[in-house]
């Protein structure tokens, strides 16, 4: 049973990622998806800002590593980048359906390199994101346990 956090969250923000990590750890506590080992960045491009956040999938836990100007500083293996509006639409879909549907899944949004794009330090690092596709999707789907997400 996941404890919902039904307060409003600004995206992107550290508070949002911290809350997402918290509900994800509860959602994945049965370990049924297996462990994941991946330090992954999320780059959000707004009209007048670029913000970067790092998540560490560390075994059966997910940890928030922090906000950074440079993914390399936090040893990020791969990151996803895209416009703020794409992220907001994705989370809106997740909150409306309790999970991502149709073209709003993480894989669907990144498949063609747009509207979101996965950047690995090399192809093996990019492929590592695919190795944990279901865990990453569950992480994003956990936004369904959060309150309204606004920009």
């Amino acid at each position: 049973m996941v404890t919902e956090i039904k307060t409003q969250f600004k995206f992107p923000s550290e508070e949002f990622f911290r809350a997402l990590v918290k509900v994800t750890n509860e959602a994945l506590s049965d370990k049924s998806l297996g462990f994941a080992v991946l330090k992954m960045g999320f780059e959000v491009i707004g009209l007048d800002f670029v913000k970067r956040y790092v998540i560490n999938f560390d075994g059966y836990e997910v940890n928030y590593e922090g906000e950074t100007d440079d993914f390399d500083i936090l040893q990020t293996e791969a990151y996803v980048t895209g416009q703020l509006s794409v992220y907001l639409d994705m989370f809106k879909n997740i909150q409306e359906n309790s999970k991502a549907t149709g073209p709003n899944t993480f894989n669907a949004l990144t498949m063609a390199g747009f509207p979101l794009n996965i950047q690995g330090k090399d192809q093996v690092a990019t492929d590592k994101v695919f190795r944990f596709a279901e865990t990453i999707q569950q992480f994003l789907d956990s936004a369904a346990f959060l309150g309204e997400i606004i920009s």
Partner: protein
Amino acid sequence: MTDTAINLDYIERAKKGEFDLGWLKDNKSEWGTKPKPSKIGLTLRDISYGSYGEVPDNPKLRTMAPRGSDIDPNVPDMGYTVNRKMEVWSDNLLDLYEEAVSRQWSATRDIPWTELPELPKDIEHSICQLATLLSEVEMVAADFPAKWLWRINHDFVEAKMFLCTQVMDEARHTEVFRKRALANGGGLGKAKAVVEQFLKLILDAQSYDEGSALMHLLGEGIVLSIFRAGEFLAPSDVEKKIFRLCMQDEARHVAYGTMHLKYRLERDPSIAEDFHAYLDRGEELMTVLFTTPEVVEPMAILAAGGVKQAEEIGVFAADILRERIVEEYLARCDKAGLPRRDRINLPDALLNNTEVNNTEVNNTAVNNSQVGN
């Protein structure tokens, strides 16, 4: 007396409590050392220390005895033919094995089969044709490792164990796509000779080198991209789940293949040309796959949402997928230390936006490989 003969004297001595205890006194193992389990449990990497942790480049014995054990001098020769570590090893093997074991899933339990919606006929046909193709190709990635497993020296047991996980993964992929084809009123579609030709090329490989390059790097790289596309194009959440779970497994196999080739070439760069030759042949057949209607059209129709719409945007979608497949494959070759951007042998028409340096049009691959069409 040989070791296999019954030692009646020993039975009599043992009855009197006169044990041999030689195994107890002569123990040369890592006695007294206790590895600390990592966060996820006691892993292969955690126990990889001391004499057990040393994986020899060229084992002297051909035995199933564990590394680090006190091995009798007269153990039989098991007849292994893959006896050099660089032929099967990769630096990510131990982690990939643990990951594979941890992330197993069930095609029966973990797919929400009861939620399959009724689909338009052309969409159901397309997903069934794609499922037929995938069910057909996936099992070769079990057959090939299985064919080579018993030939691999037991000192490389982690490589054998990883290949065992791959065999299980591929059995499950074969299962899940057959189930999808048969679960929703569609059924199995066409099986093409050109596909079988590619599978035969892998299965008939004369060496593990050849087969691994064709399967782990080229073939599974293509299938990984198809799985990603399948998730993208899936007509319902049921197929999305199938493709996402398969994608994870396939990416592990590709990670092994890429890093194994890197390990191999770093230790013997002189063999690079052999690998180029294997991939030349594999790419010829890949070209034919890209022009096979049963491979291309189902995804074009799924992308467009129907046969009629596919005439307008289906080809565009197929182009994006093909470019993705080729670019990711070339990037893996780069990572492995076998750059093929100047060498890949695909017609210009199939190379639109990939970062290939070779601008010469080379249609020989297509002309030479019209197999089964």
